[in-house]
């Protein structure tokens, strides 16, 4: 089955940027160029005035299956992904049971195949049960299909265990991903520590709780030579340390989430549990530092940390409600806002959503090169719309962006040469 994408603005970061056709046959890109001749019977997609991009790759999602399917299943998560333009997603292992063995990894891959929407790449646990004590069977996890290892949400507090994990990972050339948070320093905190947490009477988590662990992890990456990927950095200090680590040639990469470059801790006022996530929303200064980090390449990747939670969970008190917000279906317009603002060029934005994340985890994705898997996202950069969580494909509605008027919308998503999402249908 061939698809002929006609006349769109094709951006393949570092390779191509201009108006062209894209031709897809048998699940692969077969040609990119002007006025391509399509084989008879090819499906034609008119992309005039639209962006034709390599499908987005999200290094950080929580699909909750197995264990918490009432929040999200792999099927519903994958549907949310493709609706947001993400053709590949990497699922964190904090399921129940934890993805610390190949049986869970295989189950996740099987469910993803059944869903037949996005490519799902599981991330294996660093330690058994993500308890931070004994290493998980990282070799088995890798062989079963895990693309990285992380105890996300439960940082590896013991520095010796983290050192051993980084060393052991070298044998499999697998990136080690850490959620940087010193649990002692954060001590029961539920928002950024500062004058707002003081006014609200909520226990705060200081920036230093993140910075301390970024510093530790960078030191361990230097010691071991491991590929370190820092999840969702949110502070000025983290950005500064990653910049410094990169300047010294360490194999350190970093991601930032749209909420951390869009809104601040002010959003928590009124005890808004949809503004509760970990790391927490920070100050305006931190937001600026994250933008600077994206601009100068310190931060390689935009990832969503898509963290679905049920309505009744977010209806609890602020301190009791779980951390996390959904992000897959709002990431594109929030990233394009950085383009409008002049923080990123359009090509750099596409790079951070697609090409760079694929590179960081070593996935053969994020490109429209001839021969590549035909994962393509077609975007109307100008279309304005209002975020309505009731229309999300995700099972969960926990977003602080409800009611926001945003710009830039996914029109068509193609995975492996198959159209898996079309906006017009979805709206009908």
């Amino acid at each position: 089955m061939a698809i002929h994408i006609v006349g769109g603005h094709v951006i393949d970061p570092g390779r191509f940027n201009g108006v062209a056709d894209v031709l897809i046959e048998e699940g692969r890109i077969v040609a990119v160029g002007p006025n391509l001749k399509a084989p008879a019977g090819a499906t034609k997609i008119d992309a005039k005035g639209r962006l034709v991009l390599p499908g987005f790759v999200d290094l950080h999602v929580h699909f909750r299956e197995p264990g918490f399917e009432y929040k999200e299943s792999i099927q519903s998560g994958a549907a949310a992904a493709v609706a947001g333009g993400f053709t590949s997603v990497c699922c964190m292992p904090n399921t129940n049971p934890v993805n610390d063995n190949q049986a869970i990894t295989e189950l996740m891959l099987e469910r993803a195949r059944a869903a037949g929407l996005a490519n799902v790449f599981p991330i294996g646990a660093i330690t058994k049960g993500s308890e931070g004590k004994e290493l998980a069977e990282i070799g088995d996890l890798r062989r079963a299909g895990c693309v990285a290892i992380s105890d996300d949400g439960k940082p590896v507090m013991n520095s010796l265990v983290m050192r051993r994990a980084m060393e052991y990972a070298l044998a499999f050339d697998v990136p080690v991903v850490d959620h940087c948070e010193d649990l002692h320093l954060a001590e029961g905190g539920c928002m950024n520590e500062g004058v707002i947490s003081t006014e609200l009477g909520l226990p705060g988590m200081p920036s230093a709780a993140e910075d301390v662990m970024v510093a530790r992890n960078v030191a361990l990456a230097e010691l071991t030579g491991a590929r370190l990927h820092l999840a969702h950095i949110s502070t000025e200090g983290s950005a500064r340390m990653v910049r410094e680590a990169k300047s010294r040639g360490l194999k350190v990469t970093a991601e930032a989430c749209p909420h951390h470059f869009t809104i601040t801790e002010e959003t928590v006022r009124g005890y808004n549990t949809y503004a509760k996530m970990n790391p927490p929303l920070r100050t305006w200064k931190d937001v600026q530092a994250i933008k600077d980090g994206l601009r100068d390449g310190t931060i390689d990747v935009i990832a969503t940390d898509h963290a679905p939670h049920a309505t009744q969970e977010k209806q609890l008190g602020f301190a009791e409600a779980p951390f996390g917000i959904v992000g897959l279906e709002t990431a594109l317009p929030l990233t394009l806002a950085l383009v409008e603002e002049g923080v990123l060029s359009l090509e750099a934005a596409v790079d951070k959503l697609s090409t760079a994340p694929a590179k960081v985890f070593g996935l053969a994705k994020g490109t429209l090169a001839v021969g590549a898997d035909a994962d393509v996202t077609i975007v109307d950069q100008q279309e304005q719309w209002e975020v309505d969580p009731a229309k999300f494909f995700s099972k969960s509605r926990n977003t602080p962006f409800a009611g926001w008027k945003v710009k830039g919308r996914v029109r068509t998503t193609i995975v492996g040469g198959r159209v898996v999402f079309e906006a017009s249908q979805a709206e009908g």
Partner: protein
Amino acid sequence: MSLKHKDLLSLAPLSVAEIRLILETADSFKEVTGREIKKVPALRGRTVVNLFFEPSTRTRTSFELAAKRLSADVINFSPSSSSVVKGETLLDTARNIEAMQADIIVLRHPSAGAAEALARGVKSSVINAGDGWHEHPTQGLLDLYTIRERGLSFEGLKVAIVGDVAHSRVARSNIHALVKLGAEVRVVGPPTMMPAGVDKLGVRVYYHLDEALRGVQVIMMLRLQLERQGRALFPTIREYARLYGLTAERVKLADPGVIVMHPGPINRGVEIAPEVADSLSSVILDQVANGVAVRMGILYLMSGAN
């Protein structure tokens, strides 16, 4: 003039005029509490529900007495602390109570923001009787009433708030109100007990009690939560008492007419020496007595706002 708010959740958003209105309304009820028959019909037929998710004797009793002296029907509802745990939302509990036609819900809850969440979800008026470390507005108001009753004027008044400010809802309510009324507020305690950025609320921060007490007209002691020892906030109760305990010697550093306040219950010999608690400077029992009058005033104004 009346209160324009449906609820009393925090002193932060109240105007100076509104604070003065509450204090003046309390004056007339203070007179009632001095009568032989301490009861007026102002809230006859109204229902006040005391919803206390945290053990509290004095605040609950004070509200109960205030409501009864206004002839309201009072229900005390103290869900076991186990029902605060996950799975049961505060809103569900409150909607049940509202369905029974409660006019005013008085809420004490261990979580900051609980009163605000409740107020958004129910039509009844909500009075915050303490939510986590956030605020305890009626305590703040009765403290103001007690200061004013002593003939002190707020403008330029020097007040020292002493102790664990970080974990104190009483401190937050008093800081908001006193700063608004033009007082010079000093907070003093170990740096581990000063919340981040507290100076931005308009107070001066001190770490040494003697320095902070110089020339103040009001000393507000906070209760030390003894169980916080061992969490690296202070080394021992002994050292805390030596550095931040209010002794008779230290009271002499303050203005000669100084009044000593404490929201209770007091730890004698820890944050306050017995001879200070029992001295003429101490207005601790006036605070308790005024609590009833001030809460009558608040209940009266809130019912009128409905």
